[in-house]
Structures are given as structure tokens and as C-alpha cells.
């Protein structure tokens, strides 16, 4: 293939809407970086079958309506070949039917809600571990340590609630009693009522289906009101470096599930993390790796299909069983991810360590957080 022929090949246009404003602006930004790094890498390798990859994206402002319109635009105006997903379950909920309608394969990332992938859609494929498995690791450990009671709270949005309910189901399996259960609104500014009520039940485990700001608030007010469970776990906050920055020492002992960690012994994960840090200056969060992984899945699909033909790529993605820097990928009908597991991390001495599963652990978990008064 001569250079002239290469240049003549049209690029494969991959479209996505990304949350650059609104509630998911930060995570959206991470995900976008993952996408972009993947595109650079593919193109540096000479593209796919001689065709460069081009990413086309717009800002959906974290708004499902907007995203639906944008996917419509990407498909009909920009004539993209294939799609990557937006960030978050609600936005994906609005975007997925559009991709399905135009029969364009979409590798979804940033959406853990299983409901999306149980609608019998044919063109949507999940990268993330579904939200109901988020809490498995910590609960197994806690159960082994002999804990019997749990308080569960969550933000009343799809994903956060899903993680909490997954945790509750798991707890019941393990014989752990759920002694307190309550939801709170998005953007909550004061959770002292919740903390006081939970405190009255004196649970061993405090589980929150929550994001960064509310996780921070829950820990902060737990300290203020001297609430002392032995195990803290929150679905999203502790997975982010900012959790440690915002809480300093108080972040210690908090568990957080993780879709991915740079320290994991997955092919290319470490290297991705290093390059990411060099490029953007901060630690790679799993949202970034998820974006990169989704790109890799799409890439694997195209390779297996032998071209960017939509129908062939769809068939390939449905049957694919592969490994990315983000973890395993395999879906069942409807696109639900079935092979990727969730990792568990814990903040220890101001650092986040992988503590579960044991074979990839970087540190031993501490399952008995000291009471606030006993901490230095």
C-alpha cells in the first residue's frame, strides 16, 4: 500500500457525545481523554486497515435530551461510522435508542445500569461492570470478618440506587442484616439527619450508593457527629483521587469499588496510567481507562469484522471475548457485560490501595476502622 493510497482512504469516523458541562462534566472529561488517547494510539499504529480513526464529539451538558439530539446529529449529519457511548446511565438511556434506531453499533462506557442492556437492543455493548456488583468485594470481606449489620443509604438517582440495592442483595445472601435504609436527593447539602438515625442503629457497615460530593459529606458529618461504623464503603467517591484531597486524613479506611486501577496487572494498564499521567498531570481515573478500553473493544470488533462495516462490527462485538487495559469483555444478548469484575480499593495512609481480589491486591485491607476519637 503506497502513501497515496493510504491518504485516499477515508478515516473511520467514531462519534460520541460527551458531558463537558453539567453534573458529569469531570467524569465526562476523563472519559474523553481515554477516547482521545485511544484514537492517537490507533492512528500512530497506522490506523485500521489503513484507515485513520477520527473522533467526532459534542457536549451534551450532562443532559439526556441533548445527547439524544446529538447522536441524531452525529448519525445523520456527520455520518459517523460507529459510536462510542456518553457518560452516565441516564444519558446513555436516552442515547441508546437512537443508535439502535439507526442500527449503528455503540460501545457504551460510563454506563453501569443493567436495565439499559436488558431491553433486547442489538447494537449497544456494555464496557463497565454492571452496578449491582459494585459492593460484592467489600461485603464478602466484611462477612468473613464476622460483621452482621449494615446501614445503607443512597442518592436517589438510577445508578447510585442500583449500587446500593446490589449491595443490599449481596448482604442478604451473606446473612448481613440491613438495619437502616434511606435515600437522599442529588446535591444534598446536609446529611446529619441520616447520620444521626444510622448512628442510633449502631451498624457495623455503612454503605453508600453515592458520588464524590455526597461521599465526602457523609464521611465529614460522620466524624462531626461521632458515628463509628467499622466499614465504610461508597460507590463512586473513594475511587477518585479527589476524595483523598478533600478529606485528607479522614479519607482513611474508606472502601471504594473500582472499575479499574492503574496498579492492576492487566495488559497495558500500567503503561496507560504512566502515559496518562505524563500527558495530563494527574492520576488516571477509571473513567479514563474505561474510555480507552471501550475504544479497544471497538477496535477489536472492527479487526474481527475485517472492516468498519456496521453490521459486521455488530456481529463481531456480540461474539467477542477479549481483554483490554480495562479488564475482560464479553456480553450476553442485549449487550450486558458479564465477564468484567469489580475491584475493591481502600484508602490507607492517604493512599488508595487495591485490596480485593487478593490476587491483585497491593495492600491488606483493614476491616476495623478505628473510632474517630481514637484517630490521631
Amino acid at each position, binding site marked *: 500500500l503506497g502513501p497515496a493510497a493510504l491518504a485516499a482512504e477515508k478515516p473511520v469516523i467514531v462519534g460520541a457525545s460527551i458531558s463537558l458541562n453539567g453534573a458529569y*462534566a469531570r467524569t465526562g472529561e476523563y472519559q474523553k481523554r481515554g477516547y482521545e488517547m485511544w484514537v492517537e494510539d490507533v492512528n500512530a499504529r497506522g490506523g485500521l486497515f489503513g484507515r485513520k480513526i477520527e473522533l467526532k464529539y459534542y457536549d451534551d451538558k450532562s443532559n439526556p435530551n441533548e445527547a439524544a439530539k446529538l447522536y441524531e446529529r452525529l448519525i445523520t449529519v456527520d455520518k459517523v461510522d460507529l459510536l462510542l457511548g456518553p457518560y452516565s446511565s441516564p444519558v446513555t438511556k436516552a442515547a441508546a435508542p437512537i443508535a439502535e434506531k439507526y442500527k449503528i453499533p455503540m460501545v457504551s462506557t460510563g454506563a453501569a445500569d443493567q436495565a439499559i442492556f436488558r431491553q433486547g437492543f442489538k447494537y449497544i455493548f456494555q464496557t463497565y461492570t454492571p452496578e449491582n456488583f459494585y459492593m460484592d468485594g467489600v461485603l464478602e470481606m466484611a462477612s468473613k470478618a464476622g460483621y452482621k449489620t449494615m446501614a445503607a443509604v443512597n442518592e436517589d438517582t438510577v445508578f447510585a440506587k442500583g449500587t446500593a440495592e446490589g449491595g443490599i442483595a449481596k448482604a442478604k445472601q451473606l446473612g448481613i442484616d440491613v438495619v437502616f435504609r434511606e435515600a437522599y436527593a442529588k446535591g444534598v447539602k446536609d446529611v446529619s439527619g441520616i447520620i444521626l438515625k444510622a448512628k442510633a442503629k449502631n451498624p457495623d457497615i455503612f454503605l453508600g450508593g453515592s458520588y464524590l460530593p455526597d461521599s*465526602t459529606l457523609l464521611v465529614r458529618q460522620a466524624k462531626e*457527629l461521632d458515628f463509628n461504623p467499622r466499614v465504610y464503603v461508597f460507590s463512586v467517591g473513594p475511587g477518585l483521587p479527589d476524595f483523598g484531597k478533600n478529606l485528607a486524613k479522614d479519607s482513611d479506611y474508606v472502601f471504594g469499588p473500582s472499575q479499574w486501577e492503574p496498579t492492576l496487572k492487566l495488559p497495558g494498564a500500567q503503561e496507560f496510567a504512566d502515559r496518562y499521567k505524563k500527558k495530563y498531570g494527574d492520576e488516571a481515573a477509571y473513567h479514563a481507562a474505561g474510555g480507552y478500553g471501550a475504544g479497544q473493544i471497538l477496535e477489536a470488533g472492527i479487526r474481527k469484522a475485517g472492516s468498519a462495516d456496521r453490521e459486521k462490527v455488530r456481529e463481531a462485538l456480540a461474539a467477542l471475548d477479549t481483554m483490554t487495559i480495562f479488564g475482560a469483555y464479553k456480553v450476553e444478548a442485549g449487550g450486558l457485560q458479564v465477564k468484567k469484575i469489580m475491584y475493591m480499593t481502600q484508602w490507607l495512609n492517604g493512599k488508595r490501595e487495591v485490596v480485593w481480589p487478593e490476587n491483585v491486591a497491593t495492600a491488606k485491607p483493614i476491616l476495623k476502622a478505628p473510632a474517630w476519637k481514637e484517630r490521631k
Partner: protein
Amino acid sequence: MLESLPVYLQVIVGGLLLGALYALLASGLNLIFGVLRVINICHGELMMLGAYAAFGLFALWNVHPLLSIPVTFVLLFLLGIAIEKTLVERVAGAPELSSLLLTFGIGIILTSVAMNAFKADFRSVPALTGSILLWEIALPRARLASFATALVITGGAYLFLKRTRAGKAIRAASQNALVAETCGIDVARVRLFAYGLGAGMAGAAGNLIALSYSFNPEVGHVFNLKAFAIIVLGGMGNFAGAFWGGLLLGVVEGLTGYIATAQVVDAVAYILMLLFLLFRPSGLMGSAK
């Protein structure tokens, strides 16, 4: 459920401490409304900038977030003056809707600038954590400090308006600018000063927010709405009212969060506001008509 009295006391005290912060924020908003007849919809965004100022001072030079209060106050005072002079002053005397929209636009711009400068991360300043115990009641340090600061600033501003000549001139200018001018009052300066003061108070409130909450560039919005609810509770333009309204909202929110659920806490402000508008439109402090 068996609740004991101390728990309720705890809830109420928590609400009061939070309420003082609301009061500080709402007082600034109220001052601006009272003098300029401007519904300053970018008040929460000014507060947000105050929070970032405190965060920046802490992160860069390790300035304790209580010591940074004067700095954030002055910074936001200056920003307020700049905004008033270049933009808000141009709609002086225009219908309420104009200033409402103008400040809304300013709010969007500030959010967008902050978003590009600081990204959407939720920040918070890890200082003054934990509580002081008073009998069985835990007094969170950060909120206690907020409470004291809010009290001092709000009280100071109140005395200034009520007692001083400049304060009275501010009130006169708020009623009829043309006639105030014919009394020799430099109305443009009064407005400038009042807006600066209100913005400074928002900045200080932001500084205190940074102590107790996580915030990001979009946090202003929620506080905006609450601040409005509060000045309605207190009576619009009624300075003391904003203070009591803030405390009331803090306590009612605390109690709602405890007795009902935190899911409906945000609605409390609006429902309380609607009830007041219906049954006591002049607010807590207002006399009838």
C-alpha cells in the same frame, strides 16, 4: 423509633449553625435587592468564586480558611464593584426582569469561566473537621466557625445600614434614586458600594461553604434558590428578616432531614417559601403592609 431529647437538640443546633451561613448569603442578596432593586441571580456564583478563593489560598499557601475570610471578602467586593460598574449599573431603573436576566447571564459566564479554570471537580477544604462536645451536643468546628463569622458580618452590615448616615443614604437611594440625587447623594456610588458589599458577603459565605461542603463551579445554583427562599421568608429588602429567615430554614431543613428523609429537604425551602408567600407575604419580620 425512640428519639431522645438530646438528638432533637442536636438536630436543631445543627440547623441553626447551618442557618447562619444561609443568613449571611441571603443578607448580601437582600442588601443588593433592597438598594439596587436588582434580583441578583448570580449571587450563588459569586459565592462559588469565594469558595474557590478560599480553596486556592489553602491549597497554594496553606492559608487557614478562617484567616482567608477577609481576603475573599475583599476580592469579591472588588469583583462586585467591577461587575456593578460595567454591567449592572447600565440597567439601573430598568424593570426587574432586565436585571434578573442580566445577573443570570453574568452567573452563567462566571460558572463557565470557573468551569474552564478549575474544572468540574468537587473540592473541599479539609480543615476544622470534627466537633467540640457541649454536654451531649456535638458542635462541628467548621460550622461553629461559620456561625460566628456569619453573625459578625451580618450584624455589622445591619448596624451600618441602620445607624450610619451612609447606611441611610443607601436606603434613600433604594427608594427614589432621582430624588436622592437632588438631596446631594451620589447614587451611583451608593449602588456601587452596596453591590460590592453584597458580593463581599457572598464571597465570605463561599469561604465558609468551602469549609463544610464540597463544591464545584455549578454549586451556586442551589444556593441561589435557597437564598431567594430565605429573603422571601424574611421579607424582601428586610435586612433583619433575612437573618431570621436563614436560621429558620436551617432548622426546618435539619428537622425535615431527621424526621422525614433527606430526599425532600430541598423541597422544604420552596414549600416554606410558598406558604409564606401565601399566608404572610411580608415575611417573618414585616408588619402587615
